[in-house]
């Protein structure tokens, strides 16, 4: 019987002895597809290697298998907001009025202390609280804990500008037509009917800070038909023309929740994503954040 070092040598030799393949055909296909394959300019890290410093800062037990990276949400950069170009502000405009909406704002990237934090979405100031010290804020107006590569991940996105529409074919990136009413009810109905998803509940009438809101929960189906990261769910093109941001599914079986409300005539969109097989504490943590929201 060969020893283990002999086996290692045999397998290494066998792997290296196999014929060299050229990827010319693949390369041609890939380069030919670039024009129709947009880059995803997420405003938060989709993946970054294990970060022990961050762990230390957060005081997370070494045994916790958590990668401080989130791909739970994937938005293209929208104008404005922390980590991006600030939204147009009236700083030099002599015609600015006291009623002008404040610029979008969000806690800076990094660990979030347990407790209350403030943000500005659609010119609407609000506050929210995170229930523990293991949360992070990421550029892109979202917060999360855990890492998307790990099953204890969760993340909540606060859209600084609510999505305009959903995709009627997430894999082909075909927008729903006609575009739904830009209201909580219209958008929630559209979100509840995205193909490739299994609706769990909604649209349901709920409250956020005592205001009527719509809530939708769905799962990404196993037979989605494409890689989840190629399945775009909804998008924001509020600046007109080009898409400012979109959200794609991160994993088959992931659960998405959407809360949509209206404040002073503005649509406020918040969504969350969690991975399959999580316990109820994850949903509870998300609900705690949603329940803590107060519009000013």
């Amino acid at each position: 019987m060969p020893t283990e070092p002999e086996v290692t040598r045999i397998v290494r030799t066998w792997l290296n002895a196999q014929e060299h393949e050229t990827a010319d055909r693949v390369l041609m296909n890939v380069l030919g597809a670039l024009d129709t394959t947009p880059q995803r300019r997420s405003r938060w890290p989709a993946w970054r290697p294990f970060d022990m410093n961050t762990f230390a800062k957060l005081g997370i037990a070494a045994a916790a298998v958590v990668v401080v990276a989130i791909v739970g949400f994937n938005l293209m950069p929208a104008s404005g907001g922390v980590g991006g170009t600030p939204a147009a502000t009236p700083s030099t405009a002599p015609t600015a009025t006291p009623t002008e909406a404040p610029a979008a704002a969000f806690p800076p990237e990094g660990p979030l202390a347990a407790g209350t934090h403030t943000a500005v979405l659609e010119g609407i100031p609000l506050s929210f609280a995170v229930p523990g010290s293991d949360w992070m804020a990421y550029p892109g107006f979202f917060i999360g804990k855990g890492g998307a590569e790990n099953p204890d991940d969760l993340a909540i996105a606060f859209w600084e500008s609510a999505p305009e529409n959903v995709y009627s074919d997430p894999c082909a990136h075909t927008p729903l037509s006609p575009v739904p009413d830009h209201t909580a009810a219209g958008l929630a109905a559209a979100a509840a009917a995205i193909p490739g998803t299994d609706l769990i509940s909604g649209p349901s009438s709920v409250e956020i800070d005592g205001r009527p809101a719509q809530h939708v929960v769905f799962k990404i189906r196993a037979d989605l038909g494409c890689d989840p990261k190629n399945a775009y769910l909804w998008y924001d093109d509020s600046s007109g023309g080009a898409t400012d941001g979109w959200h794609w599914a991160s994993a088959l079986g992931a659960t998405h929740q959407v809360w949509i409300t209206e404040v002073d005539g503005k649509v406020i969109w918040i969504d969350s994503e969690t991975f399959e097989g999580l316990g109820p504490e994850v949903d509870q943590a998300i609900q705690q954040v949603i329940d803590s929201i107060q519009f000013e």
Partner: protein
Amino acid sequence: MDTDLVIRAQQGDTAAFAAIASAVADRFLGVARRILRDFDLAEDATQQALLAVWQDLPQLRDPTRFEAWSHRLLVRACYAEGRKERRWAPNLRLLPVDEPVPDDDLSSVVDRDLIERGFRRLSIDHRVVVVLHLYLDLPLGRVADIVGVPTGTAHSRLHHAMRAMRAALDADSRPPVREVS
């Protein structure tokens, strides 16, 4: 990988990406082929991985980590394609034969079959670690980083894989066999 090329590709420079893709495509295909043991699946995985590199490059925070990051995307693509992998051919019934078997452990078709069969029986988790470590010569710490597991897990997977391969090769130390229908 030239960091400047990576940065340019991150900014949407297709020519820079073409240079990157040309530099890594053959290696990607070689790795995918060895993990998946199927050329068509390997081509699909390579294509999927290269497009993912293009799409997600803007999200790579540290361009100097391109290699580990891109290998991670390749491994992911292999996992995705691996789910489509055809089941290994039905086991053949083997009976002893009298012919001698050549000594050279890699010159023998029987040995190659045994290695191939043993390797295919490994899970993709194990194949990935074996290929990254023994084919790309990556240290297990880097393999673990790419796969997204602790280094100890990478060690354990390699050990398990080698033990399984040893058992597969051990069949060759028994009396030579011949195939019957």
